[in-house]
């Protein structure tokens, strides 16, 4: 499902060249819930960006859902992301001038669906994350946990095979963090999604199938998570 082979990624920061990833090879099977963990600067976010088609490797190949992402153009990557991926970020990043249901509807604007169908699907996604009764609320009227649930609804509304999260619990309290991790687990368990998250949160280990450890741009180990079958 996700296959990275000998992937390196370097980028310039001022006069310096940062080696964010060095010869990383990794495969993640369909329907797995995987956490990428490691200290700051270990390359985990870079790895997530590469497998999500947000960035391209300096060397190596990235295969996701049968497509070579490293060979796609910017526009092809955008199209690929819209079709196959859902995103959850640390700071929720909902559009403040749109209601919860309108935020969830955003990815569907890129599809051929009509207005009614878009709205029905968005309401269904909100129901899955338990926020059907908050659909008309603006982000500033929702708690942090609720905003992250809306972000998850937005990530799954177009029914992608893969959901990626960059520190999805990083801005939440313990209770909300547990709820969000449980929700991501549900996406894998009940809807068969492949879920890959970057996290510092040790609580995540209990919910995932596998933990991939990174340090200084290389994979240093892989451990089964607490939910591994």
């Amino acid at each position: 499902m996700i296959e990275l082979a000998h992937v390196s990624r370097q980028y310039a920061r001022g006069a310096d060249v940062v080696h964010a990833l060095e010869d990383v090879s990794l495969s993640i099977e369909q329907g797995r819930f995987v956490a990428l963990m490691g200290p700051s600067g270990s390359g985990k976010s870079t790895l997530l960006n590469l497998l999500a088609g947000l960035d391209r490797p300096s060397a190596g190949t990235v295969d996701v859902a049968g497509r070579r992402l490293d060979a796609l153009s910017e526009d092809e990557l955008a199209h690929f992301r819209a079709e196959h991926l859902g995103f959850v970020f640390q700071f929720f990043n909902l559009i403040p001038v749109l209601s919860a249901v309108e935020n969830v509807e955003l990815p569907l604007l890129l599809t051929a669906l009509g207005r009614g169908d878009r709205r029905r699907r968005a309401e269904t996604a909100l129901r899955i994350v338990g926020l059907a009764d908050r659909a008309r609320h603006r982000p500033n009227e929702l708690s942090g946990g609720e905003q992250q649930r809306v972000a998850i609804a937005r990530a799954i509304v177009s029914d992608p095979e893969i959901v990626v999260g960059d520190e999805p619990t990083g801005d939440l309290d313990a209770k909300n963090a547990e709820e969000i991790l449980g929700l991501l687990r549900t996406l894998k368990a009940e809807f068969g999604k492949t879920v890959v998250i970057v996290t510092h949160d040790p609580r995540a280990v209990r919910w995932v199938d596998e933990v991939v450890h990174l340090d200084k741009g290389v994979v240093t180990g892989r451990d089964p998570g607490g939910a591994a079958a």
Partner: protein
Amino acid sequence: MIRFLPLVVRNLGRNPLRTALTGGAILLAIALVCVLRTMPAAFDAILSRLSNNTRISIHHEAGIVYSMPYAYLNKVRSIPGVVDAVSWTWFGGAVDPDEGVQFPNFAVDADHIGRVYADYALDPEQLAEFERTRTCALVGRRAMRQNDWQLGQLVTLESTVFPLELEFRLCGTVPGEAAQGDVDAASLPVFWFHREYLVEALRAQGVEFDVLGTIWARIDDPERVTAVMQQVDETFRNSEARTVSETEKSFFTSFFSQVQGLLVVIQAVALLVTLCIVFIAANTASMTVRERMREIAVLRAIGFGRNLLFGTLLAEAALLSTLAGALGVFASVGLARWLASMGSANPAMGPLTAFVVTNAVVVQGLFLSLLIGLVTGVVPAFGASRRSVASILRETF
């Protein structure tokens, strides 16, 4: 693209105060430009009202301040097509020489003025008295109002050209009471008196005065005006003072050339104001995009392509500018109508009725506002849409 319109509209409501201030600046700029764009047409309309299409001016080739022999007048009258002709000689009289000449005053041929200025509907009794009485003067209504004069009053003017001080009795107004509103509104504050009065006064000082300043002639048919002008100039081609003939409108256009220069300056100022607004709006657009880089990164991540993002960001700037510009155009139409109503209500402000926001100006205003939106939005929209998602994420998360 239509399905993204609600998103574009909602984004405009993100910071209502900023949107209102930016829109307000564009509104005022467009309103100003539209009103100023009416000025050349308004000036032309005022000149047309001032002018008669069968009256021509004949003056010295070197300029209107140079004199021509008085004998030219009869030669002009004898040219086929000329109904009548009258001479004007600048007297430069002032009520108070310290204040200078407050209104143009000319010595004219009293027994010809009525025929040359038939469209001024001079009162027959006043005209007859003017022709009969050497000290009589016909005065523009505006000059009467400005000086608070009454008919029958005695007025003394001291010339700034000749060593003379002449006393006049005000016998009539120019134009006459029967003249149409437009003629009255546009009439110059003239002061006409007998040429013979001036000639005799100078003769008394031992000066024989046999020159004139300008000849005004009335032609029998508008179609013949050009041919008559050519013939007049041809008549004096080999004379000591060559002439230049022009229509009354052309004469006034040249006479008010300084006003036209002012119009150019005003239009240039309007252009600079518009440019300032473009810079302000561009700065606001850049700021708006910078503040939303996280959201832009998220939109890119969930699949918004570069062109689509560019389009929605540009549409935001263009929509705001066009809406504000449309209101500006609307405001300029309202302002022009208000000025026109003021001009209609008060003859002294008659020229204000000439300010009309035409359909062409409306289209120019709308096009300009759209252009402002596109120019101000294109750079930030392009920059935001072309940046790599990963680099935005690295910087903003």
